[in-house]
């Protein structure tokens, strides 16, 4: 932790140094006058706008970008401590087409987060696509839905009026699920809220549950157990209705299949290369006719 902090501090200092190099003061110290102080001579055929040489300036900007990227990856020194003692909780219920329900409890330090943040923190496998200013649309949750490429058309909804897609609901009171008009990106989730997602075209079909019910059904430990960075880890559990079996993990294809696929590619490539070579070595039509 300490080492990461030191590295982060060093990278931030490096970034600051790079920034200072771009200031006119630094240029003046180096004996290079800035355009503001002394304009380029009029007689110059092609005025040179860059004070620093091109590659050097490019390298400086590149180094600055790398610094920013690295600095953001590690927690900053002296960062404000998150309110561990008073962390907030939100419940999540996901209802699938076969009736299975996934309960998740997520914790967050902020006062409020978006509906998409709740999904992302729940660790449920998720596919979302951005729709610009409209926010993000959910394509797939726990493997149910559609791929991102198809999702852009109608957010996975089929052509029928009641065709299902992932709809988000907010629980106004236990059992009173209301659709959110603004979508998950604009939805603000606060402490104690329960968010519901349902693969449906009409009614939500979500059960009534308080935040404590969700915590219990998700198997969340009491207290701050499992906390690594100050917040408890999210708890997730899926409940299957009678008659619904947990989906079996589809076994991947055998290595032999991939070997055969590689062989087919080699054959196609080889045949093409052979034909190209033969066609290049063939005498011209006119020549052969003569």
């Amino acid at each position, binding site marked *: 932790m300490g080492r990461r902090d030191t590295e982060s501090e060093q990278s931030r200092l490096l970034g600051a140094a790079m920034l200072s190099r771009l200031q006119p003061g630094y240029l003046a110290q180096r004996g290079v006058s800035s355009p503001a102080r002394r304009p380029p001579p009029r007689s110059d055929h092609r005025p040179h706008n860059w004070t620093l040489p091109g590659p050097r300036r490019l390298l400086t900007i590149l180094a600055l970008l790398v610094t920013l990227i690295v600095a953001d990856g590690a927690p900053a020194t002296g960062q404000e401590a998150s309110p561990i003692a008073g962390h907030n909780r939100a419940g999540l219920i996901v209802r699938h087409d076969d009736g299975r329900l996934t309960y998740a409890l997520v914790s967050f330090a902020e006062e409020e987060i978006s509906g998409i943040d709740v999904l992302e923190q729940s660790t449920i496998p998720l596919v979302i696509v951005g729709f610009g200013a409209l926010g993000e649309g959910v394509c797939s949750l726990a493997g149910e839905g559609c791929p991102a490429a198809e999702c852009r058309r109608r957010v996975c909804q089929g052509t029928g009026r009641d065709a299902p897609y992932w709809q988000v609901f907010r629980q106004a009171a236990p059992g009173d699920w209301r659709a959110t008009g603004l979508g998950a990106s604009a939805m603000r989730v606060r402490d104690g809220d329960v968010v519901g997602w349902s693969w449906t075209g009409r009614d939500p079909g979500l059960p009534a549950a308080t935040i404590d019910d969700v915590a219990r059904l998700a198997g969340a430990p009491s207290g701050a157990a499992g906390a690594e960075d100050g917040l408890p880890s999210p708890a997730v559990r899926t409940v299957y209705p009678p008659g619904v079996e947990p989906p079996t993990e589809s076994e991947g294809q055998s290595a032999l299949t991939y070997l055969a696929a590689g062989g087919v590619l080699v054959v196609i490539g080889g045949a093409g290369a052979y*034909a190209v070579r033969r066609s*290049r070595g063939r005498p011209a039509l006119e020549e052969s006719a003569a």
Partner: protein
Amino acid sequence: MTDRPVRLEPRAWLLWGLAAGVPPLVGRNPFVLGATLLAVLAVRTVWVGGGDTAAEAPNAGAWRAVVRLAVLFAAIGVVFNVLTVHAGDRVFARIPDGVWIVGGPLTLNALVYGVLSGLAILILVLVGTTLGAVVDGVALLRLLPARLATVAVAGSVAWAFVPQTAAAFGEIREAQAARGFRPRGLRDLLPLVVPLLTNGLERALTLAEALESRGFGAVGPAGHDLQRVGTPSPKPETQSSLAVRDQWPAMLTALGLTGGAVGAYLLAVGQPRPAVLTLGAAACALGFAARASRATVARRTRYRPHRWTRADRLVAAASAILLIIELTVLRLDPSGFRYEPYPSLAAPRVNLLLLAALALLLAPVIASRVDPKTDPAVATVLPPTLGGRGGQS
């Protein structure tokens, strides 16, 4: 010295193009894209010429500029996808969230999807430019009904714009280089762009004059059918009734083409039922227009109609079989075409039948080896110096 094979029937090429265009259009499976790319590259090298200028198709150099542009756009697409799509489970770097649009995690999943999408675009461009270089444009125009001839001519002019402009740019650059001109920055592009613009305008005017001198878009005189020029109509018609008679097939044609475009859009956005209805209505409109225009559009004759050779049949049959297999796989096992690196990066699914069937895309390569002299359909057309009988069909 190398040679390029004799031309194939445009319909055979179109079928091949359709079969080669399906994989990059419907999915991003790396195995399928790889097999298609290899086959298309082989066909392109044999028929268009792969850098050997002596054996190239006449306008291959101009099309090569389009391919270079496609490679550039594909590379930009990869960078854009990595910077703007932050989904996936394999994070390799992070940009601060505060950075507008690109802020967030950079994932290997986005990189893979960007590369596959770039590959798909490249394959489509390779297929299109190969067809542009090898398909006989005149023969292709003759396949269309007479009523659509004007639209087809306009389309062919538009299609030829890019290679012609690229060729003109190359000529201007060479001419300027001969004068000692060395472009160093954006400002130096002016001596290249201005002549290009002037050339383009001159070419457009010349083309317009040439089309007009050949009666492009002309209608027959009152009371006369172009089909039987010089023979007066038994019932002389008024100018207004003739104008109406000439205009409604044109309106039907415009309606049919618009309907076709709308139908294709509806199909693309997942509305099959309205799409089929719209496409059906468009086909009806075009059919009526073609039928109605028989009396008003000049009848076209052919000096030497193209005969289906053994090579044509081979390419057409292989492409048709591949299309059937592709549509069947798309229906029964769509994952054979598709691949999604989101949310987690996993090995793509392999459909061995589909992969093996993609070898049929090499049919034009094999067709190039068919000796035209042994084909009775060609022997009657080829001149005796090329081993044919020199006859005319």
